[in-house]
């Protein structure tokens, strides 16, 4: 059992925000991470920008493009984790990166470096379970969770995927990419309940969860709820203020209000 699943088993630890590292800048990312920690995030997913974010909808795609323009790489994100860790940051950080940068860094090197940089787990959204054994073996050896994704179409694969899960199981709420949506599939709750019942580790649900009402609805069917695009979109909205030393506090206050709305009971 890893620190991550112990934490997510506690009822009050259910909120997992996702943000894109380097959007609008690495310095501001740090400030936002501290804000999210203060607001009681159970864990935080930190996205590594990539040229071809296949699993992401338009909001995270454009955030990724902006971070790429800032020249942010996987190594920069690892360094960011290391710095935060050294400064006493204690909320579990989950590295969220597509597979090709991992391949280039080296699978073993990445797991070791991520762990040494204070990360608590890794999500690779374009690495299907069937292809993930080498990475999971390394994760097992280093006690570093490689967090699996399951989707409503995983069907008979669900049991096999969760049986080998570490950290938590990331349930994809509905088919398609990340991003805000009005409606979810009718049977999404049943799917979440199935995964939760089968999983030895906590479950988190994400993709499309963008309002306080969504958060309250899904909390009943998963141990944690991931909010990505809605928050990334809010950061985009506050972009110019976040980059202005005179306006940043105002922008951060507005982000705080947004997070509190998402978490309001």
């Amino acid at each position, binding site marked *: 059992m890893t620190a991550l699943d112990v934490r997510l088993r506690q009822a009050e630890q259910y909120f997992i925000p996702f943000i894109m590292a380097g959007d609008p800048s690495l310095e501001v990312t740090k400030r936002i991470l501290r804000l999210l920690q203060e607001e009681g995030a159970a864990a935080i997913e930190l996205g590594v920008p*990539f*040229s*071809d*974010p*296949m*699993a992401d*909808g*338009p909001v995270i*795609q*454009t955030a990724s*493009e902006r971070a*790429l323009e800032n020249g942010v*790489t*996987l*190594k920069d994100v690892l360094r960011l984790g290391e710095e935060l860790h050294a400064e006493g940051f204690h909320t579990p950080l989950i590295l969220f990166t597509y*597979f*090709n*940068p*991992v*391949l*280039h*860094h080296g699978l073993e090197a990445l797991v070791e470096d991520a762990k040494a940089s204070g990360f608590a787990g890794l999500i690779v959204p*374009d690495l*299907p*379970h*069937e292809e993930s054994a080498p990475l999971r073996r390394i994760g097992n050896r280093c006690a570093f969770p490689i967090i699996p994704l399951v989707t409503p*179409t*995983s*069907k008979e*694969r669900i049991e096999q995927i969760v049986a080998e899960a570490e950290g938590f199981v990331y349930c994809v709420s509905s*088919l*398609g*990419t990340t991003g805000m949506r009005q409606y979810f599939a009718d049977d999404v709750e049943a799917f979440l309940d199935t995964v939760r019942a089968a999983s030895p580790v906590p479950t988190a649900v994400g993709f499309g969860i963008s309002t306080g009402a969504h958060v309250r609805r899904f909390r009943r069917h998963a141990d944690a709820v991931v909010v990505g695009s809605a928050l990334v979109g809010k950061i985009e909205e506050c972009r110019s203020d976040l980059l202005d030393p005179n306006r940043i506090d105002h922008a951060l206050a507005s982000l705080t209000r947004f997070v509190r709305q998402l978490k309001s009971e």
Partner: protein
Amino acid sequence: MMALAELEQGFAEAVRDEGFIMEYKNLLRHYSGRPTALTFASRLTEEIGGAKIYLKREDLNHTGAHKINNALGQALLAKRMGKRKVIAETGAGQHGVATATAAALLGLACEVYMGEEDVRRQQLNVFRMELLGAKVIPVTSGTRTLKDATNEALRRWVAEVDSTFYLLGSAVGPHPYPAMVKFFQRVIGDEARQQMLEREGKLPEDVVACVGGGSNAIGMFAAFLDEWKVKLHGVEAAGQGIGTDRHAASLTKGRPGVLHGMYSYFLQDEAGRILPAHSISAGLDYPGVGPEHAFLKNSGRVRYTSATDAEAIEAVRLLCRTEGILPALESAHAISEGVKLANMRRKGEIVLICLSGRGDKDVETIRQAMEVERG
């Protein structure tokens, strides 16, 4: 992954079904006009003064390129699997047109994803697809070209996988796509091999094809892979030169990586981010290549080389002048290399070139390039 497993099973069942194969072959023959001709390029041969040059005329297919072979096969499969809609990615629009055509023929709904930049450059093909009843969806993410259109088509497929069939246009992507595209394109090589034996009583010394994703090349090579005496040559787009950062030569200059569900060669930076490709020919303008080509490169069975934008334009001019054939810019890359090979060979030896498509679609691009040349 479930969608791929379903597709793999559907494809495996279809290829064992004689009725399906018969229907596919009938469409190739009576709809697309196969077998396509094998043309002896006599004046070109004379001008080069080396080996005999033969052209496999995929440009004579319905819709003007080899793309229709695969589009018909996959659209039939979509129908057999009970899908009501096909989606496709397209660069210049050739695969989009072929898909829209096959969908119209078989009564399937069709959506084509196309980078905004390509939509702008290829207005006529956009209109053509719309005439055929397809909906063209401009893609505004990333580089706004083929790579991003592929990303978007994959995203869409994932979202509506139950009703939709993703009709992929090249020998790329996750299994079973590369194998399936090869299966539907190997008619090129099978026909050419038989025609070659009938005409010359022997196989060619060299077989040449252009390589973007690599579908016409893998289809052509398929019939010759086991003929060890036949040398195979794949020609990538060198754009403004492989020494510049403006090319699409993923096998020549790329490194192994993973994208679009395949482990193959990609143009990428040191951090593993995919780099934009460039070629005057939109069909070769893709930063990756089919995984079987990566294997054939590593095994040494196929020699991969490249031709620049300028060399392709020169080849267009040459083939127009000597043979009265306007090749697609993609195919012109193969012509350029084929001519070099013929030049080094003795009279009586044979170079077989895959002329994958006709150049009508490229006339405007060719005209502009020639104007730039003249200054």
